[in-house]
């Protein structure tokens, strides 16, 4: 059991690095879907005694459905409908991104000891994984040009927050978690709509084109 949990955490971090290095959009979406699936698995694996199993099942099931099935499907649909070029178009190259990501992983492992946490840590990899994933998500948002890839970055960021939330499942009422998941879905919807509009207006999804809108 412990080995599986370790493995799941490590895979989440490896997927972070993969996302930073990946040049293909489709692969990146699949990687995010896989990461979402891993997270729902983690939620189940971390269910110890003292947790209500029903609660965890709801969280894991909801996360799996939204993160691993619904959102990837929406994004593939968006790519198809809007005929987006299946390349990431980075502002920061793949190798520098990966180096930055690696530095982030190292630092988050180094720093996670010092963080004051409300609970006894459930798993030694939990906090570093969360930090590394949030870092990766933000890096993706900052360094990728296309609107779709920014949605991807946002999803990864949200995955990191979800990992952190696993630490707090004892404290978080189901309503809050449901709210977070719903929030995510709504955000993706809104971004989808905005992307569609940008596409129609500028005939491209390059966010640099948005600069011409500034006041």
């Amino acid at each position, binding site marked *: 059991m412990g080995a599986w949990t370790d493995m799941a955490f490590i895979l989440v971090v490896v997927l972070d690095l993969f996302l930073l290095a990946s040049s293909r959009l489709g692969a990146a979406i699949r990687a995010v879907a896989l990461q979402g699936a891993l997270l729902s698995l983690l939620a189940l694996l971390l269910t110890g005694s003292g947790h209500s199993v029903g609660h965890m099942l709801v969280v894991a099931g909801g996360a799996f459905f939204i993160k691993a099935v619904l959102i990837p499907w929406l994004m593939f649909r968006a790519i198809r409908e809007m005929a987006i070029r299946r390349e990431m178009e980075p502002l920061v190259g793949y190798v520098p991104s990966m180096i930055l990501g690696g530095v982030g992983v190292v630092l988050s492992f180094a720093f996670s000891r010092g963080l004051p946490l409300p609970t006894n840590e459930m798993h030694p990899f939990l906090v570093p994984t969360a930090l590394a994933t949030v870092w990766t998500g*933000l890096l993706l*948002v*900052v360094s990728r*040009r296309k609107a779709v890839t920014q949605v991807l970055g946002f999803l990864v960021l949200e995955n990191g927050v979800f990992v952190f939330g696993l630490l707090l499942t004892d404290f978080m009422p189901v309503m809050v978690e449901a709210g977070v998941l719903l929030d995510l879905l709504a955000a993706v919807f809104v971004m989808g709509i905005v992307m569609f509009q940008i596409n129609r207006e500028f005939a491209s999804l390059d*966010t640099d084109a948005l*600069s011409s809108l*500034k*006041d």
Partner: protein
Amino acid sequence: MTGALALAAVVLATSSGLLGLALRDRPDLGQRLSAGALCLAAVLGIAAAVPVLAGSPASVIQLSWNQPHASLAFRLDALSALFLLPILCVPALGAVFGIGYWPQEEHGSHAVNLQLWYGVVTGSMALVVLADNALLFLFAWEVMALCGFFLVRAEPDRRDAQKASWVYLAAAHVGTFAIFAFFASVGSARGSFDFSAWGGLGSGGAAASWLALLALLGFGLKAGLVPLHFWLPGAHAAAPSHVSAVMSGVLLKTGIYGLFRTAGFFEAPPASWGAVLMVLGGVSGVLGVALALAQHDLKRLLAYHSVENIGIITMGLGIAMLGRSRGEPGLVLLGFAGSALHVVNHALFKSLLFLGAGSVQHATGTRDVERLGGLSRAMPWTAGLFLVGAAAISGLPPLNGFVSEWFVALGAVSALELAPLDRASFAVLVAPVLALVGALAAACFVKVQGSVFLGNPRTKDAARAEESPGVMLVPMAALAGACVIVGLAPALLIAPLARGAAAWSGMDPARLAGAAGAASGTATWVSGVAFVLVGTVAGLWLLRRRLGAGTAAETWSCGYAYPTARMAYTGSSFAQILNQGFRWVLLPRVRFTPPKGPFPTGARFSTEPREAVLDLALLPAVRDYISATSRVRGLIAGRLHLQALLVLATLVALLAWRLLWW
């Protein structure tokens, strides 16, 4: 029981405006019913507050609330009851006044909105003084602040109301922020957000002083202490008069209530806190009245007088704090009694004056003192009632303003009875400051009364004035009557005030009782002198009637054949000498075109007082800040990656700070 009554009053007042919303087709009926509901709430409030002031124990109601750290805890003790009385009564009288002054038929949806917010602000103010839980208090406080914003914007098309409302909103939020920080630090240190668990806060050390400063900033902003008064004149002048009466007469007092409550939490506050309050109060008192003297706008002038009176109240509070730090029951009692009674008194006479100003504006359409004149012939009742308010605010016997200022002055003088060479004896300096403030206030109201009501009308508007309807005069008469009653019978008020002082300071009531006995002795003297004064005036009046009035003749006009109103002293020229002395604080904008040549034409001279803190310090600072930040914003605006990068950098910086430096 009394607590339940008070809560019923809160609910009734809060929902009073809904009647107007439901009865949109019958606006006059809706407004009358709303005013009736507010009056009923006031009656309930009196029924709740009077028994508590008369000695029945504090009433506590505890309900659970589905919010973290919050509970629906209400507490009606003597201090709350003292504030509850004006908070419920003044808005009720204002609402009755509003029937004539601001009829819903004429103002349409604006008036319906106004009535709605008017009710909610009344209810939330009452809730503020009843709340016994920090979060409930903050909730009521924020509702109150937001209602104030909408009340100032009652006529949203007017530019001055717009500007004033935004300044007000910004000030209110800075204040709430400070209070929030204060409550959060105390609450997390105490592990509970119920006020009942907050007694006996330590007051030594720098941390306690910072906490007290936060509270002073938050509540001082609401109360309008100099230099935090900058939002006040604009907001109070822009609102309709019965709203100004509520804002100036009552809303400010919630800040004072906050200061009282907070001061009560601390165990044995150091003497320096009392000194800070006395200095701030003295500065507010003198500068408030100096600024008032220079105003041409009647309502702005009254608003600056609120700053002055808040100063007097704060000086009293400072004396009471000094008494607590030295363990002197006399100082505590006199300071508290003067301060708390002045809260009630100021609510009475300031709302009376604002209603009077509203009556003048209703009749003439202007609030400019220089464009009025001679109104006492057309509006004798308004003039007479305004005169009562003016005498009361100037602290003249036999009216209520004198009584409370007398208590504060007595407290200041009894600071001399402290141990010899005690540095706290300097509190005696409050007495001359009070005298100065009172004299300047009297000068200011001579200017107002003289240039608005006496002489000849200066403009056509003033000449056309007619007396206001009875529905506007009755509330003013009620307020004036209350002023006279408090002024004639201060000894009756000593016992309730002593109860308030005991509830506030946690001092042994028996020790306070001795001081209260001494104070009631002087109060009886005050009553006696007041009765003699009233008797003398009445006797002289009767004598004059019996002898028959002399023949009416034209005023001597220095030998001019055809005197006109243009030759009469204006309010500005009357106040000129005093304004000259306060030039350093007024910083007036002077426009002067001197006469030229042997046959001069078109010479002009005008002064316009400026609000120094707002116009010369805050607004330029905000403008500079906006231009500086907009330059930075121009760099990143519209660039999504850079904005996300900013978020990232902030996050990393925060993490690094948390991990490396802490």
